[in-house]
């Protein structure tokens, strides 16, 4: 058993589940989307990215790319949230909320890709 792979799998799957939890619900209803869940998803996703730093294998590099995409999407969502709350003061209008959630939806897709690659790798290389 390779501990590094297990820990990475833990973080990447956790990132997916947290993101999924945030994403699910009505697109424009702030009550369905918890800010802490988004926060946790971003932190976990960042950790997953760093765990792939310096991985020279091809699959490792692809995983680094997909998790970087997820990070970018989530950071985008966080920035939109912050600006609407603290910057412009518009608050969580349905339009703002839907753009936040759709950004996290993009991140969700990247997370799913990561997990698919991870599963493929695990199935292909039995060690």
């Amino acid at each position, binding site marked *: 058993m390779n501990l590094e792979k297990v820990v990475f799998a833990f973080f990447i799957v956790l990132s997916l589940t947290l993101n999924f939890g945030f994403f699910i619900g009505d697109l424009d209803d702030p009550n369905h989307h918890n*800010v*802490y869940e988004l*926060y*946790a998803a971003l*932190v976990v996703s*960042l*950790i997953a990215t*760093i*765990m792939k*730093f*310096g*991985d*020279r294998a091809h699959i490792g590099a692809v995983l680094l790319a997909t998790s970087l995409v997820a990070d970018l999407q989530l950071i985008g969502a966080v920035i939109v949230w*912050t600006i609407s*709350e*603290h910057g412009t003061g518009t608050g969580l209008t349905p339009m703002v909320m839907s753009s936040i959630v759709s950004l996290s939806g993009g991140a969700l897709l990247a997370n799913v890709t990561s997990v698919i690659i991870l599963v493929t790798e695990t199935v292909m290389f039995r060690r």
Partner: protein
Amino acid sequence: MQNLVYLMLRRMRLPLIAIILVYAISILGLVLIPGVDDQGNTWHMSLFHAFYFVSFMGSTIGFGEIPYPFTDPQRLWTNVAMYLTVISWLYAIGSLFAMLQDPAVRRALAFTTFTRSVRRIHEPFYLVCGLGDAGYLITRELAEDNIRSVVIDRNEHRVQTLQLENFQVHVPALCADVTDSSALYVAGLKKPHCAGVIAMTGIDHVNLTIAISSKLLAPELPVICRAETHDSQANMASFGTDYIINPFDTFASRFAMMFQSPSMYLVYEWMTSIHEAPLSEFVAPPRGTWVLCGYGRFGKAVQRSLSFKGIQTVIIEYDIESTSAPENTVAGRGTEAITLHEAGIEQAVGIIAGTDDDANNLSIIMTALDMNENLFTVARQNQRSNDAIFNAADIDLVMQSGKIIGQRVIDLLTNPLLSDFLRLARLQNESWANILVSRVVGILTDAPPETWTLNISREQTPALLEAFGKGMAVTVKDLTTDPHETSQMLPCVPLYIKHQNNDELLLPEDDTPLQAGDQLLFCGQRHAESHMHWAAHNFNALNFICTGYDRPSGTVWRLLSQGRHS
């Protein structure tokens, strides 16, 4: 470069994860712990404010408790978070610096810098393997002549010493195993600008490996090799190594030349001396019986040359068996008075200390001089670092492998015409050499002469070609006239001309006419070369030398003066 980035990222994983975790926990704590706003209501910090607060707290900037003063539970948590964040930052920055100090990273960094500087060379360069005395000398002399070189050596200390040198051109140096062909690749063996490979390590087998690798990987490149045994010489020659230099044989034949023709020896010494070397003086070794200490590779070569010139030698050798010394050899080191006495030092005319130990060689010379102060002394110096003591010992002739090889290689690379000249000069007699020596002495100050080549071509002498085009005849004398003061000659001697049809002429007369395609070899003071180039490039200067008429350089003035003359 890629290597280095990967290495750095891999090493920074844990510190970065630590920072993110600490930030996440600190922010979360601040968000969850309730505070009180200015109206006394319970208030929760938003994620945005918490991130802001932790960011300036963690980096020890500290703007204070905003937006409202903290409650005690908040302060308690801030205490915890403060220490956590500062420690995590210290940890990350510490790891970053530790990583830069790490030998693996430093090696990767040096490798990256080396490959980058090799890639940036866009002019011909030589690949020098081995940075011993010879390799160092070659690199330095090439740099003096503004010729690029790339150096590989296994010894890190030597590479670092080279990097501290202040050469005119940058010499990239890599610490790597020279027998590894990938090191040769990295050093630019396959690059189109690579002009040749110079294998100068102290071990014959390593030189052999370098020679064969480069002959296989880049067959068209010339290879110059150092070899100390005849065995490896034959081996290197078998696969087409272009030049093989044996320091012992080279020295032995020069030494023998001293007996036959001291002036010719002087010509050789002067023409092949390195930059800023002291001017060697006229010495004539006495004929008679010589004592030779040490019958190794050096001793054998010297003995063979001396007996060829009919000079008797008595050999002193410690290990008679394994060196297969001749029968009448005296057993011993030669450092003791008793063995020297046994070899008949009192009746001998000269002593050659040729062991591979510098201290022993000096001891031999000193002991022998004690017993017979009229001896002509010859010593072999193995380490360049012993220069000072060998100078202090006031020895008549010092043989230094590195210097001999270095000089030969430099001449081969920078002045191919010189080998032709020396080959022809060798066939001349002593009186010819005497005349040449006196001519050269006439133009010298206290430094040995520089030698340089001038090709009569469009690139090197555009003015001469223009003159030929106008039907003017230019002679050797015109080139050696000082263009700034035409009544005076430049301090230089024309040594040799090679015509385009390979006709050769030694010591051309002043009235020898020049043609396009001629190659000329000169020797003289250093500044004479640049003055000569002035006339070779500037048609007006050349014209004035040839005709004594200062031609106007502007078209208008030229037309005016034409009108006046006609």
